[in-house]
């Protein structure tokens, strides 16, 4: 299991476009993903759940990845939160 914190850098926060991209990214891996913020933990399969965390720019989110390809997945997530999020 890997647990990693990321900072939301998109000025608009985690809105539908990055959330869609994130869901699609997660689907490329076999691992299970969940997100945790302020004690709320959600399965990262649902757009509704991701948006309901209401992640704003500057918030920190913990990502929990569990599965055979978790190390590849975390590399992809690093890229997503540090680079891709700038582009939305």
């Amino acid at each position, binding site marked *: 299991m890997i647990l990693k914190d990321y900072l939301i850098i998109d000025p*608009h*926060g985690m*809105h*539908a*476009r990055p*959330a*869609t991209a994130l*869901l699609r990214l997660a689907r490329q891996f076999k691992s299970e993903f969940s997100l945790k913020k302020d004690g709320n933990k959600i*399965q990262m*399969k*649902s*757009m*509704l*759940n991701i*948006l*309901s965390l*209401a992640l*704003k720019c500057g918030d920190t989110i913990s990502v929990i990845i569990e599965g055979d390809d978790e190390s590849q997945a975390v590399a992809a997530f690093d890229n997503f939160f540090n680079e891709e999020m700038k582009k939305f």
Partner: protein
Amino acid sequence: MKGIGVSPGISIGNACIIYKAAIFISGIRVETKEEKDVEAEKFDKAVLSAIEEVNFLREKNALTLNSEESDILDTQIEFLSDPQIRSDVLDKILNENKTASDAVIEVVFAAAQMFGNMEDVYLKTRAADLQDIGNRILNALNHNAQHLPAQFKKNTIIIAEDLSPSETIALDITKVAGFATISGGKTSHAAIIAKARGIPAVVACGKDLLNIENNDIIILDGTSGDVIIRPGDNKIEEYKRKQKKIIEELSFLKALKDLPAKTTDGHTVKMLANISGHTDLEQVFENGGEGVGLFRTELLFIGRESFPSEEEQFQFYKQVAIKSKGKPVIVRTIDIGGDKQLPYFGIPHENNPFLGYRAIRICLNQKDIFLTQLRSILRASVFGNLKIMFPMVSSIDEIRSAKECVQQAKEDLLKSGINFRDDTEIGIMIEVPSAALMADIFAKEVDFFSIGTNDLCQYTLAVDRMNEKVSGLYDHFNPGLLRLIKNVIAQAHKHKINAGLCGEMASDPLATLLLLGMGLDELSMGAASIPYIKNIIIGNSLSKARDVCSNVMKMDNSGTIKRYLEEVSK
């Protein structure tokens, strides 16, 4: 049945009803395991067909969707296939004995409400997406529910409560032959769109319109305001004859296309059109328009999730600049607020939106938005003959600040080495009474005036044009309003600047002689009205128009004025 005819012409076609379906929870309980399985299966099937529908919408419009619109569709698909929503719905069916549609209403609309209550403006507006997918699933579950086709059949007549600006973008109206709405007025959005496209429209038909069923044959007379439901063969024949006559008359009028609007004694008036984007230009030139007197830029801002970038705006204005082939185009800067709200902009609820935070007031307060628009217009200016116009100006300070912003936008571009036309003219809309009264002073500050009679009328007469109880008082022949208009034109000419008029009044044939007599230089209207108004100008003289004007200015009420104008227009 009779409503108000707002866009002339006759259409005979099939009704397509666009209601917001009433949503209610049936309360039916499913008890047996078999029934529950049937409901669960119905839900899954409905979701699949809703996803198909969204995909179909995307493919159908693949070429015209912008990136924001395509994102909205992506988001909808994610919501439709959301495992959380599915498990919540199935839980309600299997463990709480609800029907599939009751479960969908409870789950999806509860989620929509949760988003609606969020503080974040962006997330707040997702509530609408959730409601939309909820409606799609319910539509698929219940075949009797109203269903909006992705594309209309030829000769469709749209029957609706009213149409909001964002609804009209979502509709592909290229095949639509007319609109009839229950509410609305002369300046409602359906009326403006219908006029621009030259298709008949009747508004304010009242609840009788509810008697229409989908695919009923309807005759729509946009001139008289008559709506005939399920007409007999004789009626259809009668209206086909009328239709033919109108088309013949129109082809005669269109033959005037290349003639200038010149009176018999040699005075010319420029005939311009109101547009919302470059696709409207084709019709402008077909009808003999000599340019654009009002380019509404709001279309670029509505129906999306965030402000368009400078590049996106630049492309939008550039298209218009190129396609207008050197003819003048007056670009009005953002006129949001009032009845045109943007969800992502997050203007809080106002008790008096028309007296509130709108148009130039927003621009001068949030200058980054304004400067982005000004830079993109200036960048596009090298591709044509664009002019910039500020809406809702009420004081000289606003004019000066707005001009400083133009200067700053120019300096920004200079610094980045980007070309623009330094001689781009700057004008203002005269639509607030204080501006009309200050015309003598404002004329020294700008290159042109354009009188926006719709707002000037409602502000001068203190009448909300959307409020049906008082809309009868909304009358552009009110002598008070006429005095203001006359003053604006006179002051413009005294200071040697152009005066145009771009409200509904420009396309009112009853007003043409009067406005001609007041000395207007330019009239701007929906493209389809140009031939009719031009025909009036060509058939009259300036000296007659001046007499008409001086007689009208002596009259003390609009009833007398209208009767007199009807008499002299014969």
